[in-house]
């Protein structure tokens, strides 16, 4: 019995953004068209609005206290689990990076560095406290100690190149120390970040800890800058965006960090370390009485 040879029509995916642990379209129902490196239509991507951003901040704020209270050991295991998810699906991620113009070797290298970077920060989750905090020898009868605390909701603006490794490298230290994140994916190459959202969803990371938006920088940067519940900004940005972010941040004395890394610099081991964690914790010093 023979069947007629019909080419199977592939099922295409509707890309959605990852907010509060759910996959949603923009509340505005707006999308923008993304084509692959060859110029062929790829998909319509949500063009998030400042209202989507505010919703994401709300989700991140809600998830914050629970995430911050997880034991460092638990946060470490969840980051490690995320690395496992990425390793298993790295083929899919590499394919998507190549499809949007990355060289095969760079995409593969970026992927393995990304997974290793997650493991790097997974390991930091229960160690940075001993390096950043201290017991302080004050000249009075007090046990005086300094501990770190997460800042709260951190806004991340990811680089265009490399779109995925850049985002991963910025996310990992920020959540390793108990913050929650609202991230804006690369405007040019948003799809790998959407894939990342799908992996986050299967990685034991509680919903809302990481929220990933897609859309246009020029529409969203002003709200990142001024939203008072975003307590810190971590951005890969040009001069104009940097100025706008700093100007807006002043109104609520927001902490602002920029990364100067570009292109292959993100591959290097020097693109990771304790400083990225130190930049997103507050230090609290307690004077505890001794004796009664």
């Amino acid at each position, binding site marked *: 019995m023979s069947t007629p040879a019909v080419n199977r029509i592939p099922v295409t995916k509707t890309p959605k953004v990852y907010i509060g642990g759910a996959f949603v379209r923009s509340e505005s129902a707006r999308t923008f068209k993304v084509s692959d490196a060859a110029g062929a239509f790829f998909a319509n991507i949500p063009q998030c609005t400042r209202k989507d951003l505010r919703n994401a901040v709300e989700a991140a704020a809600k998830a914050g206290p629970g995430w911050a209270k997880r034991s460092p050991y638990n946060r470490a295991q969840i980051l490690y689990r995320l690395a496992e998810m990425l390793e298993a699906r790295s083929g899919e991620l590499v394919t998507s990076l190549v499809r949007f113009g990355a060289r095969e070797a760079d995409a593969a290298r970026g992927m393995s560095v990304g997974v290793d970077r997650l493991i790097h920060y997974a390991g930091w989750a229960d160690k940075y406290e001993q*390096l*950043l905090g*201290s017991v*302080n*020898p*004050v*000249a*009075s009868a*007090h046990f*005086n100690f*300094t501990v770190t605390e997460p800042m709260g909701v951190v806004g991340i603006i990811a680089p265009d190149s490399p779109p995925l490794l850049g985002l991963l490298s910025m996310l990992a230290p920020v959540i390793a120390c108990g913050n929650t994140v609202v991230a804006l994916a690369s405007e040019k190459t948003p799809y790998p970040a959407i894939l990342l959202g799908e992996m986050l969803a299967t990685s034991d990371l509680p919903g809302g800890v990481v929220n990933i938006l897609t859309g246009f920088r020029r529409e969203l940067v002003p709200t990142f800058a001024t939203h008072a519940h975003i*307590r810190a900004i971590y951005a890969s940005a040009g*001069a104009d965006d*940097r*100025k706008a972010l*700093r*100007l807006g*941040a*002043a*109104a*609520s*004395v927001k*902490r602002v960090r*920029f990364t100067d890394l570009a292109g292959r610099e993100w591959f290097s081991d020097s693109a990771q*370390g*304790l*400083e990225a964690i*130190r930049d997103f914790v*507050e*230090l*609290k*010093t*307690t*004077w*505890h*009485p001794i004796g*009664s």
Partner: protein
Amino acid sequence: MAATRKNSGGPRSGLIFGDLWEFDPAPETADPKLKARYDLFIGGRFVRPRSGRTFDSVNPANETKLAEIALAGPADVDAAYKAAAGAFRPWSAMPGRERGKYLYRIARLLQDRAREFAVAETLDGGKPIRESRDFDVPMAAAHFFYHAGWADKLEYVAPGRVAQPLGVVGQVIPWNFPLLMLAWKLAPALAMGNCVVLKPAETTSITALKLAEILQDAELPPGVVNFVTGAGETGAAVMGHPGAAKVAFTGSTEVGKAIMRQLAGTDRKMTMELGGKAANVVFDDAPIDQAVEGIVNGIFFNQGHVCCAGSRLLVHEPVAEQVISKLRNRLRVLRVGDPLDKNTDLGAINSREQLGRIRRLVASGVREGALMYQPPCRLPERGFYFPPTLFTRVTQSHRIAREEIFGPVLSILTFRTVDEAIEKANNTPYGLSAGVWTDKGSRILRMSTELKAGVVWANTFNKFDPSSPFGGYKESGFGREGGRQGLLDYAHLA
């Protein structure tokens, strides 16, 4: 009836001695060795301002002129940055061991002249001599001494990285702790190998310029530290100068935000030590008498001119009446007056402007329905003074519960549960400090974990130490001063 009165610390009990005799005046008489005129300190020398302008520094205790101070214009600030930039290479290349010795010298020379500096500080700023003598000056010396020892140990500051100096640092400090803030700013910057351009507050420039004499005596290389005096415009020039690798500011949140906007187009590193509206939380199991002393110290220390002052008292309902009654009694025996008198508890308000601000906010408290208490006390006829003030029946929406008054004014609120205390304490855009009074160690740690503040004092308040990092959350600023953490804020990590 009598027993009840005793328990609630009735209105007159414990006060009898307060009316029995007058204190004799006990003025501190050491010579502050002031000059009639202070020039700018640039490149290791005192120089006339290119601006050609000067302003007066006034004793707020009696409104008399103390000295004429040079007003630095943009050209003067520029000259200071040039001097600092010129000094940077040899200073930063000097072995830390040797750099540290200069800081040790400064600490020692300051200790030698402690009494003279204390009197100068009190004359210029209005704070009680007891505080400048026992706190400001010795603590300033301690900061130099502590940081001196870091200079040759910088490889231990940031594990896995090399800590390097940033270059020239621009610093602007406030008038509430003129010499101490200067020490907080200078000592870590210098230990790390940076050079400094610093502007003292316009009402309190004198002890900085007296310290310049010590820097000369210590033979600190010219240009490593430069002092430019003046008001807001000079400050903006110091903060905005392109030669600054980093700026550090202590002052109001309003000015801090303006500086952040001013520097928005640059990648300048910043430390901001801004305002506060600290909650001082008293639980029913607290040692009440100790807590009352702590509350008084928390809000009336330095006339309440303290960014981390415990200006919001949150008191547990079961003990509220008792605490408030004891506080009233305590206020009645506080001595307000001549800052140079060794028995004075509250000295002069730093300036006429500040007095006006305190009066406006206090008037708003009355207008908005809070209940004001001021003890009967006679204020000197000349000078700027304000009596210690309590407000009860304060709600969270009152201006006196939300805005920094920066004066001897305490707003009292109550709470029933631990969660309510935490909620109320954190209900502010500020987050500099907080206090907790309880007998339970576990409750101290719970509160300390939940309070959104950079410093939490348990069963104490307004304690400081060079080894203890100080700085705020939220709109109280960012960066730390003191300890290894504070030192790191003056370093580039390579």
